[in-house]
């Protein structure tokens, strides 16, 4: 079902020492909104966030599978996987499943490790790109131009949040199905912080 994969808005950006990920909170069943407070950003481990767009079952199944494998690696080796390694592992799983039983998920994986903050853009075909900022779903159509113009390296958290708020405002004014609430999470060297969700009613 290609519609649901495109209808999830995911956005991410890399800041000075953090990665900021936001995701909308709606779960749609055909033309019905099943839920408006669904958290689409999973905590892969203490220093990695995984925002997933796509089919409900696939999204949960795949992200939990990645999460448990990262945990297994941690236990076996006593070391956490770097963001880059985790992203490549995830990509490999998508690529292997592609010609067997594909996972219909697009994702943004952001984390902070010894090399600093990094963000990866993954799609259901097994494409992987390291990016400074990224989007999944229709939201990108409206926000890439904003991010292109306003993103700069080494942004402070306040600047990053302000930029995301600008993107959220744009989606909620220009996207056909407006009124989206957004989950906002930050990952820093200290760990994951869940910020207050941005509610369309208050924005």
């Amino acid at each position, binding site marked *: 079902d290609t519609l649901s994969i495109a209808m999830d808005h995911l956005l991410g950006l890399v800041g000075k020492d953090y990665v900021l990920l936001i995701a909308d909170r709606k779960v749609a069943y055909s033309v019905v909104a099943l839920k408006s407070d669904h958290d689409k950003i999973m905590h892969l481990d203490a220093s990695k966030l995984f925002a997933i767009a796509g089919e409900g079952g696939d999204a949960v199944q795949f992200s939990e599978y990645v999460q448990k494998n990262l945990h*297994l690696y941690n*236990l*076996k080796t006593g070391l956490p996987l770097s963001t880059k390694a985790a992203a490549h592992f995830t990509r490999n799983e998508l690529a292997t499943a592609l010609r067997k039983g594909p996972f219909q998920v697009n994702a943004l994986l952001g984390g902070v490790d010894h090399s600093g903050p990094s963000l990866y853009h993954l799609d259901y075909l097994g494409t992987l790109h390291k990016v400074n900022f990224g989007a999944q779903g229709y939201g990108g159509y409206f926000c890439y131009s904003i991010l292109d113009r306003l993103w700069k390296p080494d942004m402070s958290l306040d600047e990053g949040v302000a930029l995301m708020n600008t993107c959220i405002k744009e989606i909620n004014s220009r996207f056909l199905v407006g009124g989206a609430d957004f989950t906002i999470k930050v990952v820093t060297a200290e760990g994951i912080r869940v910020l207050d969700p941005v509610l369309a009613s208050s924005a």
Partner: protein
Amino acid sequence: MSSRYDRAITVFSPDGHLFQVEYALEAVRKGTTAVGVRGTDLIVLGVEKKSTAKLQEERTVRKIHVLDDHCCLAFAGLTADARVLINKARIECQSYKLTMEDRVSIEYITRYIAGVQQKYTQSGGVRPFGISTLIVGFDADGTPRLYQTDPAGTYSAWKANATGRNSKTVREFLEKNYTETSGDETVKLAVRALLEVVESGGRNVEIAVLRAGQPLQIYDEKQVEAVVSAIEAEKAATETS
């Protein structure tokens, strides 16, 4: 299809023995001692530290292993066999979490490990694992648990137990001296039990403590020395009084 591995190696003797399993237990008896003591709020694992070669990196020779955040394992016997079994157990812990959204209970993972050990006594082309394990951890309701498995695939729960060389002596000591303890008292009991068969001194024992909701804490040399000194002080006090 390979028929070369159809033949069983572990077969009954005329008088009902599985000699391969008994020989595996012999291998366990040759391994360095491991002891486990269950307290009310923590579980202590102690192992005899085998003297490492001068050029060997000591920290890479580990007998106490983490299976999951809430559960650990110590063993006596063939180290390589332990590695294989521990890997299987770690995967099972995550697989269980993936399907059940819950961590394994200590009895479950013990039953799994024992099940694997039993399978290798009744399969073609394989030999039993040459290890006995002590599995410790906390269940979801916070109850501390200690289990033991052996090469036959038997398992049972214990308040305190030992395996490996001189385990009989250690177990007899524990039977005489075990009481329900908590915190440092449990650590001291475990160390005292181990010191019955190991040359005295912090250099020859490794102690690990598991508390509910906390990662496994492996005592460094200073901490072990502190426990050993406390034990020796108590012994001196009781001898003079």
